[in-house]
């Protein structure tokens, strides 16, 4: 996909056959696309990836080319519709696999094998192939066939038990974070497989990525908590509202502000709110004094009136000046208009026939290539937009393609 003279992206000579759908797998192949990979997304004819039918929709009107979720997850991909239930559809997948370095799939365990497209089948036609499977619980084990959705995968894998307030129920993370994290791990697994093939002349490899395990491995630093439990015998708990002196979420004139307190940081907070004289007192002047549990409530009475008189941004600027660790509880609107993200042109405008140009989250990483900005992303494909193009690349004639269309294979 490179035109001569264009500065290269690391994967712009790599082809990925993308048999993923929903959220986890597509998030991963999207990242391979960000790094320049030619991602060929295989979709079911007529309806496509189920996320095409999932909100948010542009102007809240449903439609296969209106889902923001789909548009977000599928930038830099080409869409080919293919009926995998048909023999000819599966033959086309095998033809595509011959010219690809990576296959990523996210069907229920066993599905690819049942279709004759399992790793053992595909490596016969491409011994250097890296195949990555993303599933909820992995390809084997007692939970293999459990139904996984974001909520129960976080409950089991993430550290939900430690998330939230001591006197209230455990909370999930926002949106689809656990699924996306697993997709990210699938991108890494695929790249690691490719590295073996190219740098160590290894055979292809099969990567088994489980959402449950990638979460357990360490959303919310869970690996530290698992070790900590074994060290201390104590189970993780949800912290109460204010657990450290000066710390917690404090109300401001226009919202809320998260601050990290504790005996080590409190002197800076005291200076920030202009109460240096406190540091001369026996209660506040020594680390031991500041560590007394009574100090927590006492200090709330000092700091809350101070934060209430200031905006989130004023508190943030003060934190920066006094080396206090904290951050405003922003809304997504605040985020998109945040001066830091604006200064770096982080959010990218991407044009789409349905929406016109709108803002998307930017790149995860910025490559400082000599004399080259990061490339612009291509919008998510319309359903089957590249079917003809990709089949032509495979050597099929216009007649062949018309026949496949007539038979509902593509």
């Amino acid at each position, binding site marked *: 996909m490179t035109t001569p003279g264009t500065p290269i992206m690391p994967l712009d000579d790599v082809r990925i056959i993308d048999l993923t759908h929903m959220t986890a797998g597509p998030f991963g192949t999207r990242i391979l696309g960000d790094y320049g990979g030619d991602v060929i997304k295989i979709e079911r004819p007529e309806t496509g990836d189920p996320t095409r039918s999932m909100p948010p929709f542009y102007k809240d009107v449903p439609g296969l080319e209106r889902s923001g979720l789909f548009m977000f997850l599928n930038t830099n991909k080409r869409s080919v519709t293919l009926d995998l239930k048909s023999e000819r559809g599966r033959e086309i997948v095998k033809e595509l696999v011959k010219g690809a370095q990576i296959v990523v799939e996210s069907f229920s365990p066993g599905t690819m094998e049942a279709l004759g497209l399992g790793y053992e089948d595909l490596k016969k036609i491409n011994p250097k192939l890296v195949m990555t499977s993303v599933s909820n619980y992995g390809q084997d084990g007692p939970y293999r066939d459990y139904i996984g959705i974001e909520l129960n995968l976080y409950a089991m894998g993430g550290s939900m038990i430690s998330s939230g307030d001591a006197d209230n129920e*455990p909370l999930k993370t926002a949106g689809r974070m656990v699924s996306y994290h697993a997709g990210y791990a699938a991108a890494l697994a695929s790249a690691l497989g490719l590295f073996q093939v190219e740098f160590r002349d290894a055979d292809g490899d099969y990567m088994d990525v489980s959402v449950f395990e990638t979460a357990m491995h360490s959303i919310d630093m869970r690996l530290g908590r698992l070790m900590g439990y074994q060290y201390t015998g104590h*189970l993780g708990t949800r912290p109460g509202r204010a657990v450290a002196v000066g710390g917690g979420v404090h109300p401001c004139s226009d919202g809320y502000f998260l601050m990290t307190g504790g005996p080590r940081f409190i002197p800076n907070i005291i200076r920030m709110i202009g109460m240096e004289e406190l540091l001369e007192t026996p209660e506040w002047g020594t680390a031991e004094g500041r560590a007394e549990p009574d100090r927590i409530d006492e200090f709330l009475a000092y700091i809350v009136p101070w934060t209430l008189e200031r905006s989130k941004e004023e508190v943030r600027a003060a934190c920066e000046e006094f080396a206090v660790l904290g951050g405003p509880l922003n809304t997504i609107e605040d985020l998109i208009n945040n001066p830091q993200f604006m200064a770096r042109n982080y959010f990218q405008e991407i044009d789409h026939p349905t929406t016109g140009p709108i803002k998307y989250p930017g790149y995860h990483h910025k490559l400082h290539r000599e004399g080259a900005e990061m490339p612009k992303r291509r919008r998510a494909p319309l359903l089957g937009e590249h079917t003809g193009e990709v089949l032509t690349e495979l050597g099929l004639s216009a007649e062949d393609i018309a026949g496949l269309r007539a038979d509902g294979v593509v």
Partner: protein
Amino acid sequence: MTADNSSVNSLGAPNPGNPTKPDPDLPLAGMRIIDFTVVFAGPYGTMQLADWGAEIIRVESTTHFASTTRGMLARPALATVQAQTNMGMGMPDSEPGERPWNRSAVFNAHGRNKLSMTVNLRTEEGQEALERLVAVSDALVENNLPQSMERQGITWERLSEINPKLIMIRMPAFGLDGPYKSYRSWGNHMEAISGHPLIRTYPDLSPEYAPAGVPSDAASGIGATLAFLMGKRYLKRTGKGLLIEAPTAENFVPLLGDFVMDYSMNGRVWTQMGNNHFYLAPHNVYRTQGEDQWVTIACRNEEQWQALCERMRHPELVNDPRFKDNESRFENRAELDVIISAWTAEKHASWIMEQLQLVGVPSGAVINERDATEDRHLEHRGFFTRVTHPEAGTHKALMTPFKSMNNPGVGPRRHSPRLGEDNEYIYKSVLGYSDEEYAEFDKKGHIGMDYDPSIP
């Protein structure tokens, strides 16, 4: 580049080999990576690189203690250790021991397979040692406040001149430029700025109760590992090294992609969702029998809803007008949650999970650390192994987060390095200093396994 294990010292005896004994068949064997990472996001990245076979050299110092990497304080009081509520910061038997910095749970979890050297970079000879290390390494990974790296002379301009093939991965919170370049931040503050806790927190409570978990850190780590592989591929194709900037905030915002898109398309601002789904009901966590035990239950379609009603032995709910379709259930979800809670209250979370999964309803027990380390599925999958640490004892540790068929059983080969544990190997075998020169580094205070007594 391969670690030169065959080098000899001035007496003709062999220098020490890599103490972590990397398996030459692992995918990243022969790669050497300089590790300036702190706290969790960066170390989780170099942990993946170490697990898959790279030689990771943590550059540390006996005169500087990076808080929260090897514990909150170098020498915490017994009472402070006992009062710790975040178990990631826990220590064996809740005792600081002789060298508390070798006993932090989270460090001892993510540090496995890595090496530790100590050097004082505020000296000429320290900087010379750094230059030697850069010259024989494939990459450098760091996640610090940008200027604190630059103050130590660690800049792309300098390092790429020493080693034009170097891959440098920098993971500042917000970026190497922009108004927040110098804004000191941990993962939780960065997530707050990025909008996460306000979406995540309780619908019916003040945002003062917002949770402070940090899912972003693990994603930053995975990203750093990927960035290394991408950098190596760029090098292979162009012959040039590469600086990859991976700000943790920019890496994290895509994990909130749904919310960015809804704002871009519809101007909608989601806040205080708690365990609510965007549109599905039921979708919540319910209290079960036992202390702080919970189970999640959700239904994505009518089939699952009917199965749930059957299993709760409340088939009449299917025809209840309040719950007749997803839209009605979503509207009346508070009433629905009361009914489900009444059913879950006297049952075991794991029993509910298994019963509901049997009939195809998505459900999961909210599993704590004990449940996790004893989980039968993870046991079957070989998720855990055991590692012995000389100052912390023997405990279960995790294998890699995904499995490779070519490389079964990849996980810890050695305990997390004690501060300065591998100085001799690194100074002599990697950097090529003689025994005399090493003794000189020792005399000048670079070498050590203890923090300077002045550090609290």
